[in-house]
């Protein structure tokens, strides 16, 4: 092993299959460092939840090993693993009050009564729910139930916290608020967290690292800026944030990893980064983020090098910004964002503009 420090959690070559034919998780290698906030991100059925459930002990891997703190845990039952867990539907015990729910893991660990009371109170204060201790879960709002579930997962000082789409049931505002709250808890408690979500914004804002799953495999793992800024394949580029995917053909390959792409729908040649070995004539998808697309009015003489002329086919009002759509075919259209306060003019349908982007802002992938 080249790694001097053994990772906290280590998946090695883990397979999981329910029917013996298809692997839901396929040859998974994954390391989680101590104190890290790692998010497993992917569409439903990508294997991210199964990975979490295997770490929690609810599912056994079909092949491979999972180590925790240097020891294999595949044969350790869930109740001995000492991981806090937040479930999608919270799974608060409906027959117990909020305080009893929090006391439950402490009772199971035979903590002394007065210590339980103190610890429950302290933890409820951390999530600012001290006043709801005697409520039953059925009497809580979604956000409150979420906090109680969170509090219950940390009250017994677990070795790590696993969260399975914990914010899925909340509305957007509450979700954003809870994202900050969980992030705060992570810092305050200095605890390792494994978080599963299908929401890429959530993943970007909360994580130290993100692992993008698809088809049971990790497509790419890295920091949010690595994931957003330099996706390694088309799936990650499309899944992380918004992206334009334009049809093109390689017209020339150059040194320093840049290629020239002829954009079929716009009849223009643009430069882009290539991460795959591509030949001249290969059909590709050119991915460029809407916010990296630059616009210049066509009246301005010249314009930046490599710009191509285009007409606005549609404008969509978003409140904080306006999106401009170019190209006749909506499925292969190019969109760009224009903020309101840029001092620039208001664009309208039919306006002629010059479109360009930094060569390093665009990436080509095989379709």
């Amino acid at each position, binding site marked *: 092993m080249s790694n001097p420090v053994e990772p906290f959690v280590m998946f090695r070559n883990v397979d999981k299959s329910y029917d013996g034919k298809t692997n839901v998780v396929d040859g998974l290698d994954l390391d989680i460092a101590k104190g890290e906030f790692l998010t497993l991100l992917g569409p439903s059925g990508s294997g991210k939840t199964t990975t979490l459930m295997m770490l*929690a*002990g*609810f599912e056994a891997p079909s092949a491979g090993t999972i180590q925790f703190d240097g020891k294999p845990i595949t044969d350790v*039952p*869930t*109740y*001995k693993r*000492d*991981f*806090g*867990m937040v*479930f999608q*539907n919270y*799974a*608060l*015990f*409906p*027959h117990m009050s909020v305080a009893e729910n929090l006391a*439950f*893991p402490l009772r*199971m*660990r035979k903590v002394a009564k007065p210590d339980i009371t103190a610890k429950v109170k302290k933890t409820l204060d951390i999530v600012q729910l001290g006043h709801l201790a005697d409520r*039953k*879960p*059925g*009497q809580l709002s979604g956000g409150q139930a979420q906090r109680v579930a969170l509090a*219950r*997962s940390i009250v*017994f000082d677990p070795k790590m916290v*696993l969260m399975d789409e914990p914010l899925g049931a909340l509305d957007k505002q509450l979700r954003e608020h809870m994202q900050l709250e969980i992030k705060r808890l992570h810092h305050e408690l200095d605890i390792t967290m494994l978080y599963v979500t299908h929401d890429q914004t959530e993943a970007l804002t909360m994580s130290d690292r993100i692992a993008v799953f698809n088809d049971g495999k990790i497509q790419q793992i890295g920091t949010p800026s690595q994931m957003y800024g330099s996706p390694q394949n088309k799936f990650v580029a499309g899944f992380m944030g918004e992206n334009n995917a334009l049809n093109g053909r390689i017209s020339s390959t150059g040194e320093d990893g840049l290629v020239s792409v002829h954009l079929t729908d716009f009849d223009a040649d643009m430069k882009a980064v290539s991460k795959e070995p591509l030949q001249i004539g290969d059909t590709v998808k050119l991915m460029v983020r809407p916010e990296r697309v630059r616009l210049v009015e066509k009246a301005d003489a010249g314009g930046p090098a490599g710009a191509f002329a285009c007409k606005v086919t549609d404008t969509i009002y978003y409140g904080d910004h306006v999106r401009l759509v170019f190209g006749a075919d909506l499925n292969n259209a190019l969109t760009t964002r224009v903020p309101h306060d840029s001092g620039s003019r208001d664009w309208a349908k039919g306006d002629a503009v010059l479109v360009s982007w930094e060569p390093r802002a665009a990436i080509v992938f095989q379709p």
Partner: protein
Amino acid sequence: MNGKSKMSWLLVAPLLILVCVGFIIPIGYTLIKAIKNPEITAALPRTTSALENWEWDGKSPPPEAVYEALIADIEQGDRGRNYGSMTRRLNFEQSGSRSIMMKARRIADKIEAPYAVSLPEAVPEFGDGDIWQLIKQNSNPYTARYLLRAMDLTVTLDGSIERVASDQAIFVDLFKRTFVISIWVTVLCVFLGYPTAFWMSTLSDRAAGYVMLLVLIPFWTSILVRTTAWFILLQREGPINAALLGTGLVDEPLRMIFTRFAVYIAMVHVLLPFFILPIYSVMKRLGMEYVKAAASLGAPPWRQFVTVYLPLSMPGVAAGAVIVFMLSVGFYITPALVGGLQDQMVSYYIAFYANQTINLGMASSLAVLLLLFTAATIAIAKKLLPETGSGIRA
């Protein structure tokens, strides 16, 4: 009342009418039958009103006017059904009264006034006050005597309540037996049905469908057929005994039919689906989510069950147990067919009084007490069951 609510009343009207005609009226009628007492006054209107001012002192007979009233009632009454019912009614209170009253009717047109002398000469029982007191005591249009008798109590001539002779005291034991059998049947159903329902709730929908079919097929079969099947299976010459003898496990056939054992086995078989169905639906809804949560919080398997799964599935247990208990206290056919005389339940005697002796008062009284005791048992059970709070969220 607006059009919409008129419409909804119209829609529920058939059900309301059915409930009234098929349920409330017959049950109300039965309840009233338990305390109605029309027979004596219907047959002997003059005698009962003449007796109103007479006080029984333990020995002396009533005055001549009462005797005249009795003769008038016999001669001017319809001499038919009313008189017969009256004699049966008196005989229920005091055996032997029927023949005394019959004799009085036979000699009524042969004797002359003063009847206070001639009637006791022909029928000596009319010489003292006892038979008259019996008539007077039972001339009230309503009576508690049937209900008292259903609790093995009776009213003496001086009006005090005491226990009936031990050879006639059968009803207290009968009620005890009915409840003991019902409680055991319920307990057996809980212990057999709970694990079965749990197992079913963990199966895939497809597999659970097949198992459910196994539960439901007996459920769809008539109780009579199922009980008869047990009757055949448990016989001395039946297949079970044949198998036991064949394998050499026993030397002579076991006595299984007409025993309490047969009653339990047949009743549990009949009632088990009633327990499994409600508890299965609760468990299906409950799922394994809370058990998983408990496991993640450090609860070993038995504590996951005791602290989380059991309390959350309790509403289903309670619902199933109440249904099984209520059905089993009213069981008739099964104990009647496979049980012995000592295994008969209250319903057997209700049927006996209703069909054999046509004593509707007694049949109704047993029914009323059964209803009251059952309601009380369920009320107590509800109090004792742990509060499950808001239960499972849908």
